């Protein structure tokens, strides 16, 4: 898994561990383990946004960076990764009501749908990113769901409580070098987000040695190209309509000023 975030790395751990369950069947003590957190980690229970890992991460008031679990195991199914913050932690800028629908219904639906589509196909056993790249342009049903799982997970990690401000160090230098100033970057990013007609996403990406702002339509995602995404903002109407109605520009301003997680961006930039 390419994410450097607590949320998806934990999901990766889930996937890796659940597939070794068969080999654990001979260890009764494994199943007798009462700790909820451990059972969730081992993939025996669907992940929800309110599990102990999410609360721990939220209590640190920062995204917890966890190295991805060792890969090369057969995946059974995808889990909805936990939110990297408490549901109420982004208020008043992004409501828990919106997260109930956006995370609990939309993001969950993509996971449910992909798990129905993958078994018995060429996509079985592959990682989420592999499925996104393999299905792009070939299998719209699989692509739309897989890419939207990826995009939404990336979006949650692109936000944090007390977000906003500016990056520091090499990333800030690169932004200033590319866009002239940090304010110019914000203006260009906002323009991309506001002019993405219909549903889609705006991204800051790294491509070789350059930074670029890109916008994508519907489920499209820069990981089908050589670009490495740094942050994204969801501009499907469902992402902001309950809190901002038609005021997409206000939503994007608030994302940049109060929500964006520059730690996550910096970690992606350093990859």
């Amino acid at each position, binding site marked *: 898994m390419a994410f450097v975030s607590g949320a998806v790395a934990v999901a990766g751990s889930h996937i890796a561990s659940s597939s070794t369950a068969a080999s654990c069947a001979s260890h009764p003590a494994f199943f007798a383990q009462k700790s909820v957190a451990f059972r969730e980690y081992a993939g025996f229970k669907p992940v929800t946004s309110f599990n102990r890992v999410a609360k721990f991460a939220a209590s640190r008031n920062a995204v917890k960076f966890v190295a991805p679990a060792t890969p090369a195991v057969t995946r059974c199914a995808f889990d909805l990764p936990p939110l990297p913050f408490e549901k109420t932690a982004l208020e008043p800028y992004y409501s828990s009501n919106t997260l109930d629908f956006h995370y609990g219904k939309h993001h969950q*639906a993509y996971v449910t749908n992909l798990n129905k589509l993958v078994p018995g196909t060429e996509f079985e056993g592959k990682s989420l990113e592999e499925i996104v790249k393999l299905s792009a342009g070939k299998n*719209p049903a699989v692509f739309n769901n897989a890419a939207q799982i990826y995009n939404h997970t990336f979006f949650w990690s692109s936000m944090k409580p007390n977000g906003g401000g500016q990056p520091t160090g090499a990333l800030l230098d690169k932004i200033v070098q590319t866009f002239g100033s940090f304010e110019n970057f914000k203006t260009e990013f906002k323009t991309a987000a506001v002019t993405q007609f219909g*549903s889609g996403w705006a991204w800051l990406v790294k491509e070789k040695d350059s930074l670029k702002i890109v916008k994508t339509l519907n489920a499209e995602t820069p990981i089908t190209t050589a670009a490495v995404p740094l942050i994204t903002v969801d501009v499907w*109407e*469902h992402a902001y309509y309950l809190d901002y109605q*038609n005021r997409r520009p206000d939503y994007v301003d608030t994302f940049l000023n109060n929500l964006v997680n520059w730690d996550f961006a910096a970690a992606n930039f350093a990859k």
Partner: protein
Amino acid sequence: MIAARTIGKVFSQQHIAFAGRRAPVDAVSFATKAAASLPDLPYDYGALEPIISAEIMKIHHQKHHQAYVNNFNIAQEKYLDAEAKGDISTMVSLQGAIKFNGGGHVNHSIFWTNLAPPTCGGGEAPTGDLSHAINSEFGSLQAFQDKFSAVTAAVQGSGWGWLGYDKAAKKLAIATCANQDPLSITGLVPLLGIDVWEHAYYLQYKNMRPDYLKAIWKVVNWRNVAERYAAAKS
């Protein structure tokens, strides 16, 4: 009474017919140099409750549709200016904005007339020629609605579901369009359009687009659809 005007050269094949049992609504005219304007709704904002809330109707009409009108006028003015100067590059670069916003204006103008409160015929099944055509093409009204709802629910991202008339084949057809692409680009004549951009239903139905598509049949103004059908066939 049907009031139809031929639209100016940008949308020359598009006819917009308005009819209502209340005070007649002025037809929207895209005469080449006239600005587009927001048409009034032929009913109150709350008239379609509980199927579509007053809150949604107000934001949808006053904010979203108004924005398409404003942005179309801006793009059109720039386009005419570039055209006068023979600046073809600029004319081409404005095509996107004209399509997005002009399409949005055309689509929503049709949409408001496709809906009506039950007191004005909303939800009343079609009769006559249109009813025969629906039964002939789709089997029954219910079968048509089920198919339309399924196809429209499956629109990826933002777009519209349409019942259109194929003049060449002389039959009805269901189609979907992405974003604000007007149905006219498919060659079909628009008869009934249902907006499935999330702004059309999200405040009330949230992620349950299928529920919105099931409910909306109760306020579809089949008399308006029949008038458009009659005009399309002639």
